[in-house]
């Protein structure tokens, strides 16, 4: 869309006068720097066109102004560079984790680990005895692997958490060969498993109690552990499972930590250690305390036809997450629906308040 025409349309929709100068500058900057790169747009569509459609759905000027103010002051958009930066930041944490494990095993202070040859050797061994597993495509295992070339080998990274028997055997075989080649006195077992994901809002994707399941648990972490139980010979005893999210909400932290501890109680062979790269504070949520006008708008501007069996009501986001977060590759469903939900234009009868998204969400669960 022609930038000049788009800016003119936006200024008309928001009835801008002298403030247009500063708003245009802001829109040009943010669309170039962040929003145009959103991967959920349809072909040929960019941020300006999406914003125009989003604002147009509000018939009252006050609502348009409220929506625009939310976009400017409250929305949190993680660009690819920002997430990649969080991936870069993960290695120091991995290193500290292994240093601490070596220090504990050898009964020495952590600062000595890299300074003395015996502990340094043990560090190298434990690093090779580590497995890095992506829990989703958002884990950016490609970036992580390239970022740590020379530190970890390709055979230590896995892009999916459901690992086949053949893959387990192959990984252990390569670990055994590496130990033999290096003439290390070590067992060919994995001592550290790093489970990596990009984002969690409620923590339920990672771990939740589920009475309908045989084991009483569901989520990526229980699935991985239960599957790993069939490969105990390939794992050390105990086996450290470090679960890391690049971005998480404070709420999810509060949910994951006690559940992980409870789960570990049932599977003592595994020592579970959840960590988070960046914690989003609750002040970024959409609530009457943080942005009342927008909260009122999402309350009244809602179309129930956007709900699915899985999602249920998304007015305040999935599970009432109330998030204001958008990731460059997709918008989390815990983010309030007004940002991402879209009314099917073929639906009959037409809803009273059809919804147009600002950042269209690609849905995995239909």
């Amino acid at each position: 869309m022609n930038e000049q025409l788009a800016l003119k349309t936006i200024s008309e929709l928001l009835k801008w006068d002298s403030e247009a100068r500063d708003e245009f500058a802001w829109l040009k900057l943010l669309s170039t720097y962040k929003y145009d790169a959103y991967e959920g747009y349809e072909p040929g569509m960019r941020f300006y066109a999406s914003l125009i459609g989003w604002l147009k759905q509000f018939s009252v000027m006050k609502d348009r102004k409220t929506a625009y103010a939310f976009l400017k002051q409250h929305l949190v958009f993680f660009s690819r560079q920002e997430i990649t930066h969080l991936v870069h930041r993960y290695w120091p944490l991995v290193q500290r984790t292994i240093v601490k494990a070596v220090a504990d095993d050898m009964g020495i202070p952590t600062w000595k680990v890299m300074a003395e040859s015996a502990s340094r050797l043990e560090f190298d061994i434990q690093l090779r005895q580590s497995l890095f597993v992506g829990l989703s495509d958002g884990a950016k295992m490609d970036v992580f692997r390239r970022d740590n070339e020379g530190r970890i080998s390709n055979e230590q990274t896995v892009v999916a958490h459901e690992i086949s028997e053949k893959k387990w055997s192959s990984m252990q075989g390569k670990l055994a060969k590496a130990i033999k080649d290096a003439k290390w006195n070590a067992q060919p077992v994995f001592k550290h498993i790093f489970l990596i994901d990009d984002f969690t809002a409620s923590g339920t994707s990672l771990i939740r109690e589920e009475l309908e399941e045989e084991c009483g648990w569901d989520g990526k972490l229980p699935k991985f552990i239960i599957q790993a139980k069939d490969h105990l010979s390939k794992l050390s005893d105990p086996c450290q499972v470090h679960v890391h999210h690049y971005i998480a909400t404070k709420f999810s932290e509060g949910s994951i930590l006690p559940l992980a501890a409870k789960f570990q109680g049932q599977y003592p062979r595994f020592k579970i250690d959840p960590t988070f790269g960046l914690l989003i504070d609750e002040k970024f949520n959409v609530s009457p305390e943080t942005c009342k006008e927008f909260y009122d708008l999402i309350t009244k501007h809602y179309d129930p036809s956007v709900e699915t069996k899985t999602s249920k009501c998304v007015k305040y986001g999935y599970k009432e997450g109330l998030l204001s977060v958008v990731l460059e590759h997709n918008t989390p469903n815990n983010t309030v629906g007004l940002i991402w939900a879209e009314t099917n234009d073929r639906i009959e009868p037409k809803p009273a308040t059809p919804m147009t998204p600002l950042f269209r969400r690609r849905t995995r669960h239909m």
Partner: protein
Amino acid sequence: MYNPFRKRASENLPNSDAFLPLVSHAPVEYILQNHSGDDLLEKLAFLLGTPGSGKTTFGRLFEFESLMTLHHMVTNPSFKNLAKVLSDFGAISESGPSILAARLPMDAEYREIWELPYDESVKRGLFLNLLQSRCVLTWCNALSDQSVADNAIGIVTTRQSPGALGNIGGSSFEELRSNAVEFESTVYDVIHALVPRSANQIATMLTRPYDPLSCVTGFAVKLDHTDIVTFLKPMLIVDDAHELHSSQFSSLTDFLIRRDLKMARWILTRYDIAVSANEWIQDQSTEGQAGRQLGRDFTVLLTNQGDLAHKRAFRNAAQDIASRYLQEMPIFMRSRQTKLSALLADTCKGISPSNVEKLRGKVNADIQSLRITEERAGKLQTLVDSYAGAENEPEDIKLAMLRILLHRYAKRTPQQELFAEIIDAEPKRELSADAGVMSAAKLHLMHEFGRPYYYGADMLADSGNGNIEQFLRTADELITTIESKLIRKKQNCLLSAEEQHRLIKDVATNTIEEWDFPMHKQVRMLIDFIGMKAVEVSMTPNAYLDHGANAYGVLRSDFQKMRVDYPELTTVLHFAAAYNALSIIPSYHCKNETWTLFQLGGYPIIKHGLPFNKGGFVEGGMRSLFTAIGGAVQ
């Protein structure tokens, strides 16, 4: 959307096709005025200016690529004036460029040589070898970039034996180039070594003589694939020389001032190391054992001589540059709005009617309190009407002018007795309503009623204070606002006086807030002190300084003792002058005394609401300035 106003530094423009359309001839013409090509191409020339005053643009203009482009585009109306200025100077002839210049910015690499752990003579050798080899390579590259084949280039050298020539530079073009590559690589190897080479190793490396600049006097070149041989005078332009260490700078000057050099050589620098251009020149003249004489040994060019001609030239240049930039912006081209003055209102609707009434009340109150007769007030009103009426000025200006004249009248007549009858005495000096009174009236109205003062194309140009970069920064704010109006298809995209005033004030205030150069806090304290004093004086009811003040004056004799009496203040002034916060006028004659004026720069003037007119100053002493920057008075 492309906005060239934000490019500002000419280094950001990749080639002459992007660079030349944005260059105005006016500042070039101004810098070169009173200087012939012979004068500037035979001996060492310094170009002095503050940051952003156009030194690099000036130097880049003389690069071979620019001159070739201008030569080819000489009939293009956009380049006609520029090409003429350069032809008059002798940089371009009918057959093509007459100069082959190498512009070498003195980046960190050169400066780092002075940090190496060697004797100064060794460092000097390394520095000059690098400078000379880079100069030769830049010449070679400039010619090959214009597709001049090696066999179409001949070098003209001094009359030395071929053996000597081969040793110190090269007797052919190929030899000149291969020697330069070799010497550059040797020096590069030394300055980028992880562990410094030993003094012995360096001594071996530097044993071979290398002095190509002393032996090359010209190039005989066949340009544009023709058989016509053009003579090119070699030239070295050392850009940003202020980046060098002071003793390195002296070495460079000693080297380039040599009379045996037959090439043109210019040094472009700020006068950071001195508080004024004059002092800088004086310092240069006393450098070296033999002494140097301005005119005999070197020439000095100034980007701003602080004269009226510069103000006029700068206004023209600002208009010209703005038009060129606007032509590069599609939205302005499409709407045919490429003349800056046509986009900026040059009139102001004045203060509100209620404020006019308030002002009228103040005038009447003054008539009463100053004990002026109605008849005299009427006469003064007639004076105002005849001047302001001819200028078509609104009521608020007339009232403010009358108020100033009433106070002047009161000052020029004997004091009246409080309870005696009012006497209509003749003033000691005749009163008149003129441009000075009108300017003061406008200033008073800005401070008292918030009437816009900074508006119109000339005022915008003046806000740059002779500094193109500063002008572009301010203009960018206004242009962006006009652009937003054009996007919204506003019928009237003219920027009102009120909008201009507000935007110009904002950019000045914000820029000063963002200062981060050395000692910026003290500089800010200094300009705030001068600014407040100047406002105080400018706002006196009789406006005895006419336009108002924007400077602080101390006796020249006190200023000369500054380095000894107040060394900290000297350092603060040094940075204030280097970063356009103020300029120093070393000798200004007034009231039978010689003064040194500290005149505020464009943004400080705007921040404090002062006039751009020069000459008005507040009298004071060095000690007050010293106290103003937080110095403890002993």
